[in-house]
């Protein structure tokens, strides 16, 4: 999810025709599912929340499909292949983060809200300003995440289909965007959920087969697999097996690593597209089962990537990975080719595409729900609008977001994707999570606290990233090449030393929420607070599943 997908040259392995055929089969199958799912899309609860009728296990699989993006499959496997243990650290942060969602957020959120994160945040505070702030932060997180995925699609296509022209890649980005709009328009949340379920199952099975294959080559002895990886990586050697290869260089990089670890572990429970998935189940018990299923699937998948990463180092070797188009991201596809030839490569490539499609569809429905329900329905129309009217706006919004994502993705093609995804996680952890926790657990929390925390977290994260080495002034000491978003090394306006701002912005947002609250004279709305607390824990008055 955070490792960069570099813009590669055309691939020199595999057979693009096989890849395209397998991918086309996936698209046809998912479109058929989406059209089937669309027959019951009648009300707002159908469109936004899939009728709240998914079971916990189904939703848990869909959450995994939403969460495990292409970059987490290709990126983490590649990071482990090249940087060894430091790549593994990402997956641990991404997994442990789910305990925050399980213990503190998922069930209470399901019981209190209807469709969006803003429903919960504005429950007992002043409706309009808090809802607006929550909706803006939702849109910002979705936008950066979406841009990262779309830009990633360009790089992935080049790698897997042999499309090396920028124009060809732009066409593929547009196709991804159009497919995503179709999924969301036709299928709503129900269709999107099924696409995510299909994709998650394919991804886990694909990665699982490769994992068993790799382990079988080393007689299921992890130690000899690690030994082979070390032997094949003379430059890194034994360092491949312990932390520090990527982040251990200086005191600053160590601090950067801690900052990243903080943003990862606190970001997940603030990601709006993850939170929205909790509304697709009938009650809080199913929300709990969803997270439990998601934790098992995501955890097992990350264990697979550990084997795949070291397997790629041992079987393909770091030199060939670095020389391949797409560099680190080609580790898993190269490994697939070594193991199962062009058919397995085709399957793995198609799964990587499916991954992008499913993730962008989930982001699009979250962003359009937030705009239609929060900004249009509740703020502009003051709640005086029918569900049908809102859903119509949500559909228009999905088209607009799709077009913006296509254009943004074409421009961002080749940009550093780690930057965009880290920004999304840092914003989610800084702007969303403090307010979610305060409004669920702190009686005195009030409107000013929420606004200071959301806007303060949002602004500080964006400002610190703009003036960080990720945007300008980061130079590779050996080659002199720029590692920043602005590749012109003469432009350097960075003054914040860290790549990830979480270590500053997350505590800041918590402090701002506290400070805003205690300096405001707004009295606690005791009745609304009582309603929120009782509903959150008992499920009384919670939105029910739609009966068809």
């Amino acid at each position, binding site marked *: 999810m955070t490792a960069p997908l570099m813009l590669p040259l055309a691939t020199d392995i595999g057979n693009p025709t096989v890849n395209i055929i397998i991918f086309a089969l996936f698209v046809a199958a998912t479109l058929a599912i989406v059209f089937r799912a669309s027959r019951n899309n009648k009300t707002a609860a159908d469109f936004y929340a899939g009728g709240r009728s998914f079971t916990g296990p189904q939703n848990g699989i869909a959450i995994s499909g939403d969460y495990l993006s292409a970059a987490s499959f290709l990126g983490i496997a590649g990071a482990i292949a090249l940087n060894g243990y430091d790549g593994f*650290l990402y997956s*641990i942060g991404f997994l442990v983060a789910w305990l925050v969602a399980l213990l503190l957020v998922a069930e209470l959120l399901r019981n209190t809200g209807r469709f969006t994160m803003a429903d919960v945040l504005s429950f007992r505070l002043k409706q309009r300003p808090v809802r607006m702030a929550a909706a803006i932060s939702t849109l910002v997180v979705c936008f950066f995440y979406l841009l990262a995925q779309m830009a990633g699609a360009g790089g992935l296509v080049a790698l897997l289909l042999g499309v090396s022209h920028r124009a060809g890649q732009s066409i593929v980005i547009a196709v991804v965007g159009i497919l995503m709009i179709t999924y969301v328009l036709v299928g709503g949340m129900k269709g999107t959920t099924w696409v995510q379920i299909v994709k998650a199952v394919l991804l886990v099975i694909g990665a699982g087969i490769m994992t068993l294959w790799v382990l079988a080559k080393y007689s299921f002895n992890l130690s000899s697999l690690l030994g082979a990886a070390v032997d094949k990586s003379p430059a890194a050697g034994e360092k491949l097996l312990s932390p520090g290869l990527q982040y251990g260089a200086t005191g600053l990089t160590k601090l950067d690593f801690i900052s990243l670890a903080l943003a990862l572990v606190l970001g997940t429970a603030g990601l709006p597209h993850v939170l929205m998935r909790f509304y697709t189940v009938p009650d809080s018990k199913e929300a709990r089962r969803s997270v*439990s299923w998601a934790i098992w699937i995501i955890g097992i998948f990350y264990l697979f990537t550990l084997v795949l990463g070291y397997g790629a180092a041992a079987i393909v070797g770091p030199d060939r990975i670095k020389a391949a188009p797409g560099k680190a991201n080609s580790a898993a596809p190269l490994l697939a080719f070594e193991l199962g030839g062009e058919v397995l490569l085709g399957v793995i490539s198609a799964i990587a595409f499916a991954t992008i499609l499913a993730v962008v569809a989930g982001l699009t429905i979250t962003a359009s729900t937030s705009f239609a329900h929060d900004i249009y329905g509740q703020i502009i129309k003051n709640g005086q609008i029918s569900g049908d009217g809102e859903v119509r706006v949500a559909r228009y919004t999905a088209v607009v977001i799709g077009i913006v994502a296509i254009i943004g993705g074409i421009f961002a093609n080749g940009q550093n994707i780690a930057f965009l995804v880290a920004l999304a996680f840092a914003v989610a952890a800084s702007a969303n999570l403090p307010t979610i926790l305060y409004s669920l657990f702190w009686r005195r929390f009030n409107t000013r606290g929420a606004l200071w925390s959301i806007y303060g977290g949002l602004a500080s994260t964006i400002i610190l990233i703009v003036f960080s080495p990720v945007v300008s002034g980061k130079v590779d000491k050996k080659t002199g090449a720029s590692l920043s978003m602005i590749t012109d090394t003469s432009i350097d306006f960075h003054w914040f030393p860290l790549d990830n701002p979480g270590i500053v912005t997350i505590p800041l947002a918590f402090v701002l929420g506290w400070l805003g609250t205690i300096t405001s004279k707004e009295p606690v709305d005791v*009745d609304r607070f009582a309603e929120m*607390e009782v509903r959150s824990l008992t499920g009384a008055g919670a939105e029910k599943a739609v009966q068809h």
Partner: protein
Amino acid sequence: MSDTRDPDLTTYRDVQLSPDFSELRRRFRRFVFPMTALFLVWYFVYVLLAAYAHDFMSHKVGGNITVALLFGLGQFVSTFAITLIYVRWADRRLDPDAEKLRHQIEGEAQ
């Protein structure tokens, strides 16, 4: 249809102040807050060791298995374990009482 709505619990305030609800909230918080503290502390101990204790983490315990690898896999084990424990605990100790209160609030005439 019989209405089991409790006549004393007419508003959410009444429920919030009732002993049954206080007990439910206390039980929930006494489980999730310490558990959250526990896994966050364990996670950051691990992160700090990974960042600052390279010698300790690169120590080999057998074959090519390092301490770091065991600690990393330990994070997976603890995450899975906490998930199992919490789900079982909540199913048994949270849901029955929460459901009873919900019925009292909503009545059975739903």
